[in-house]
């Protein structure tokens, strides 16, 4: 919050350039530009508040004593900070197990979708072959389908396969959900690794696999890691498929959703914070890659 205000207080470098302190530009165009700039800052602050204030509220609720959840009016600056609400949630029946299952499902999804998707992404990035544009179009067209909804027929299939209500059946579904994304992302990451380097390694006697492992992989690794982390969050957050595909082996969101209307307020608020917190950290970690990740998918 303070960082935002600080950023707002300092004048931009461009503003300083356009308007030296000793000789302010009084032309109407410059004045108009300054007005637009001031307006932009105001809009930026308003939009930031819209994003940040709800996060502040839920954090305050999660870290004040349980009774405060029922207090009215609520204090905007918490009187006492306490982990009681969070601990109450964590100690509730099934929460630890569900938390662990969520981690397992997300990790399985990450590994599976990377193993299946990255080779395809590499093929799209590096090879010219018949059917390439068809394959690309096929992957792009998955966007037109609400994939999550497919968990209903999948549930019926999983029952006949005998793997219904297991953590890995949820991971299988989540992999299907994440795979098109992984393929497009990894392909754009591999495209950004210069082909010349790989070919130089081959000329110097590397096998295609050797060139990939020694040259391409180290350069692509940060991007691949960012994509993998995002896949993790995708699975961590997913609730519809998780609640359809499980009965007892609930992931955290599925557990919270199934109990939502019967659970006390502190439980819900702490649950929301638990689901939210990791994603905030993740977005922070991969912030440099966000544009690359989603921007490239958009093309």
């Amino acid at each position: 919050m303070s960082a935002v205000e600080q950023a707002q207080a300092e004048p931009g470098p461009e503003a300083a350039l356009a308007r030296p302190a000793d000789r302010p530009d009084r032309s109407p165009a410059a004045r108009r530009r300054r007005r637009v700039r001031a307006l932009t800052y105001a809009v930026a602050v308003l939009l930031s508040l819209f994003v940040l204030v709800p996060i502040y509220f839920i954090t305050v609720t999660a870290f004040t004593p349980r009774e405060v959840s029922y207090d009215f009016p609520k204090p905007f600056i918490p009187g006492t900070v306490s982990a009681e609400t969070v601990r109450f949630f964590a100690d509730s029946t099934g929460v630890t197990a569900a938390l662990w299952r969520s981690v397992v499902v997300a990790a399985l999804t990450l590994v599976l979708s990377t193993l299946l998707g990255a080779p395809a992404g590499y093929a799209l990035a590096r090879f010219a072959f018949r059917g390439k544009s068809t394959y690309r179009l096929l992957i792009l067209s998955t966007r037109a389908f609400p994939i999550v909804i497919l968990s209903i027929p999948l549930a019926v299939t999983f029952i006949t396969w005998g793997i219904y209500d297991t953590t890995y059946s949820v991971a299988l579904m989540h992999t299907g959900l994440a795979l098109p994304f992984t393929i497009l992302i990894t392909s754009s990451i591999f495209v950004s690794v210069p082909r010349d380097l790989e070919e130089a390694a081959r000329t110097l006697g590397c096998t295609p696999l050797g060139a990939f492992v020694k040259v391409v992989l180290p350069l692509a690794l940060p991007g691949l890691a960012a994509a993998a982390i995002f896949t993790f969050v995708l699975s961590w957050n997913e609730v519809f498929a998780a609640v359809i595909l499980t009965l007892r082996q609930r992931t955290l969101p599925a557990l919270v959703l199934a109990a939502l209307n019967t659970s006390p307020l502190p439980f819900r608020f702490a649950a929301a914070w638990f689901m939210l917190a990791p994603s905030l950290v993740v977005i922070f970690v991969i912030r440099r890659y966000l544009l690359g990740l989603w921007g490239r998918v958009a093309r």
Partner: protein
Amino acid sequence: MATTTAASVATRRRLGWAPYALLAPSLVYLAVFFALPMVNAFGLAFQGDEGGYSLEPIRRMLGDERFAKALTTTLLLVVIIVPIQFVVAMGMALVVNARLKGTDLWLYVFALPLGVSELAAGIVWFSIFTEQGWLNSLLTQVGILDRPFIFLDYQRPTLLILTIVVAEAWRATSIVMIILVAGLQGIPRDYLEAADVFGATAWQRVRHVILPLLKPSIRVALILRTILAFQVFATVIALAGSATNVLAGEAYRWYQNLRDARVAAAYASLILILSVVSTILFLLLLPTEEDRPT
């Protein structure tokens, strides 16, 4: 240079099978976990009690008293959410692209909800809109209200829908924003500077330079967002409980509470059809020059 090219051509010829081998696992996987369930969804939706084809699940879906409301609520949500989000996301994207002090920080803040789940967002906004929640705390303390106002009033569906719209706008605007920012960065800065030189106002610049050049990104963002909006589910449950209902919620209810996977599949098929139709509409209404696949 010539030798490298020759070498690469040679390897390409030698490794002609390689791309297919690399693609095969993902294709097989998508066939089993994407194409097959899609076919199965329609199969289930037209399956009778003793197997075989039947319109019974569809009849049950259409005959359900909650069906019409679920359909209209979902469509209403899509129609309200998508334009609002587009405007907010465009505002965010233009702010990021304006290169204010701390561009990365603004981008990070606006992108924060990207990682927030539907369910968490629903509960966060429930804590704000609930009778003894944050919004009422604010309004009574400032003196605008004497006593708490019931925002989540089960008697007033319009108000419920508006709270869902706010929660969804908060949660899912970032994805639209990211796509638009990525698109904006692809616009050569010369174009914008040229507009400046000719004395274009900020609005003229957006209207006549940015929007036309941004069309491909806008189209993708709208398609993605609309399909997500058709699947809206956990936000609705967290905010409105069973007071209002949407298509995905009905699919869940029929599967989980009424134990009828076929009617649930009928709902899934309906969402599928709506999504595909909306995608086609966007493709037709916003044609771009880059439509030919590369």
